[in-house]
């Protein structure tokens, strides 16, 4: 255990524990976009920055990754921190003008004006990478990835083609913080990331529920007969 201070308050933490966790446990508010409790940190959005004074050496760090150390002083709302956060939000608002979450956060942090020409071609994707990590670490199929670099960076299935491995589970849709990923269902067919999935109809209630492809995949990986899985959760 180590002792440190956050905005002047003395707190204890596990050595190496991410400052974000420590601060949130202690009731401090730190905004985040690319952090997720189940998927951990990746340090992309930089919204979670805090200022750390480590024996006189001051720096702005990403709290979702910075490890708790003995005697450091953490400030969650210094001028430097505010400037970085507001810059991030103004830049994201220019990139994703239609993303409600960003609009909301920007307002909350006093970003009232966007001094850039807004992008029209990026949808709501802020490149937080959560969908990619979710697909890999939670679903376990790694159907998504990032490609390109700089402002051209993109997220999606490889080569922007319907992915062979995608099972159509829609987990990425749920985890996406901005609602960028479109998933549609029409006449028993689900479309996500340009791939079409035939939905299974429950033999009992006749309602469409999950993609057949996903059921087959679960059946294969967990050794459960497909027939069992065809019955929807409500009727099981």
């Amino acid at each position: 255990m180590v002792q440190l201070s956050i905005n002047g308050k003395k707190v204890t933490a596990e050595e190496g524990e991410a400052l974000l966790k420590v601060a949130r446990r202690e009731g401090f508010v730190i905004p985040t976009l690319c952090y997720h409790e189940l998927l951990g940190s990746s340090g992309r959005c930089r919204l979670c920055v805090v200022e750390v004074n480590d024996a006189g050496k001051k720096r702005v760090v990403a709290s979702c990754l910075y490890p708790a150390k003995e005697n450091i002083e953490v400030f969650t709302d210094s001028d430097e921190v505010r400037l970085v956060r507001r810059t991030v939000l103004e830049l994201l608002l220019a990139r994703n003008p239609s993303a409600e979450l960003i609009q909301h956060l920007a307002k909350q942090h006093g970003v009232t004006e966007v001094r850039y020409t807004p992008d029209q071609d990026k949808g709501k994707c802020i490149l937080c990478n959560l969908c990619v990590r979710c697909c890999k670490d939670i679903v376990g199929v790694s159907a998504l990835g990032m490609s390109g670099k700089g402002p051209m960076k993109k997220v999606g299935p490889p080569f922007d083609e319907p992915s062979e491995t995608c099972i159509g589970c829609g987990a990425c849709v749920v985890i996406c913080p901005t609602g960028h990923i479109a998933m549609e269902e029409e006449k028993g067919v689900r479309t996500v990331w340009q791939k079409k999935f035939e939905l299974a109809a429950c033999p009992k209630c006749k309602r469409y529920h999950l993609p057949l492809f996903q059921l087959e995949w679960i059946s294969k990986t967990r050794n459960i007969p497909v027939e069992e899985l065809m019955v929807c959760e409500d009727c099981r």
Partner: protein
Amino acid sequence: MALSLKQLDSITSAFNAKEQAYDKIIRVCCGTGCITSGANRVLEGVLTAVEREGLSSKVLVKKTGCHGLCERGPIVTLGNDEILYQSVGKRDVAADVDLLLKTVTEGKVADKLLFRDSARKEKYTSSLDIPFYKGQKRIVLAMNGLINPEEIDDYIAHGGYRAPFRAFQMTPEEIIDWVTKGGLRGRGGGGFLTGRKWSSARAAKGGLKYVLANGDEGDPGAFMDRSLMEGNPHAVIEGMVIGGYTIGAQQGYIYVRDEYPLAVSRLTKAIEQARDYNMLGHDVFGSGFDFDLEIYRGGGAFVCGESTALMSSLEGKSGEPRDKYVHTVEHGLWDKPTNLNNVETWANVPHIINNGLDWYTSIGTKKSTGTKIFSLVGKVNNTGLIEVPMGISLREIIFGLGGGIRGKRQFKAVQTGGPSGGCIPEQHLDMPVDFDSLTSIGSMMGSGGMIVMDERNCMVDVARYFLRFLTEESCGKCVPCREGTRRMHEILDRICKGAGKIEDLMHLEELGKALQWGAICGLGQSAPNPVLSTIRYFSDEYKAHIIEGRCPAGVCKEITTFTIMEEKCTGCMRCAAECPMGAIIGEKKEPQRIDDLRCITCGICYDVCSFDAIKIG
């Protein structure tokens, strides 16, 4: 079988005896620069001529690494620096080869091939007298241009591979102490104390450790590391063997960008030869210590030179950096303790071990010891690769070695530190070139790029150029860098086009701070440097664009016009002859006029007018 020191000495004597058996040695530079200007044809020509004339037993023809004077290539030297010939075979290979042979057989120096210093209007026979070389202190590059980089015996004969013998007599702690006291600082950019890094890597827990050499060199126009790897690959290997022993690593990797095929092939040969002599592999130098090296060819992204991105790329993943709150000396390549140094840093190590602390610390300044290699380019008379003692002034480099500004122009700024370095104005020209001084004036040492600019360089345009590069090279992982660099570029572009607002300056400074504090890696953190340093030193130029709507350097096309001043124009019509658009009208001996409708504001007329009769408006 491991070679002993004694055997190295006998290799040396045998090699020297072999060379001394010849009357003369002709050295043809076969670095990438000279090869591009035709060195291979010259080499072939010389070899054929020597054979044809029956001189094979008297004249030895050797190929060497880069001399640094690439712009004047192909370079050929005779004897030990006695005669340097430049631009050999540029126009006529056969004729120049004849001249070369005449020098060898009749001792007749070919005037036409001598180096001419355009600023001083002088010709030099020996490279030792050329100001470009005279001001240098070549330690790391000493063997470049002298030895055949593809022959390990040549390296050994020039003192190579002695340092590991000394090092293995020392404990790792003693070596660390030695390197620390020698004050060696990383040549890859940050200037981090090498000894301290080694010490942390040695102290890090973990059986398996790695040493890496950074040969990514992504700065546009830089070729320091390339020339070193091509011209003296064994020096890097020798340094890494010592580093490996010191930190306790048994495996090393040299990360070389894919665009450097010659560096890759020379390093590959060097590694094979070193293995044959048991200087790499099992029980190296008979020390009981195992160490081997491999080359990794990197995709060539600028960001892959950043330590964590380089390691991720080496692991076969995408080259994205990560936050370094946990250091790579503890958790680096494949999560193992890893020590990364730049190739030039590695090549310094044998010299410190061989020549001792007093010698090494006597070169350079107190806090920046040794030498640094720079690639000097831009508007100076002599461009090329130079190795100078740290602490030399920018003025000595630019006006001494570089021979001053081309033509009759005035110096405006020198950009150091690569794309994310800063622009330094006239007032700081006497600043010593060392890590801390350059940082204190808003620039940095970086890996050694040095671009000289004159009054025809627009500083806003320069900032725009570098921000464009950085926008494209940003990996796109973190928001401040991915979105911030492109927006900085947008603002600069607007200013260059005459549509800037005075608030833009504050906005740029604010964005700059957000990037410095908020970005993950050095690319984003230092990306504002070109903008902030030009605003700091050349705010007048920004204001001229924004308030007066003109570009004083006559570079930004949208807001530049050229006019001929009647009273000064002699009607020589030089400009009319050079104008690519035929936009200059007038009678001979009469004042000329520019037709604005046809003019594309390329500025060629301005550059060629001998009477200063053209005005930038």
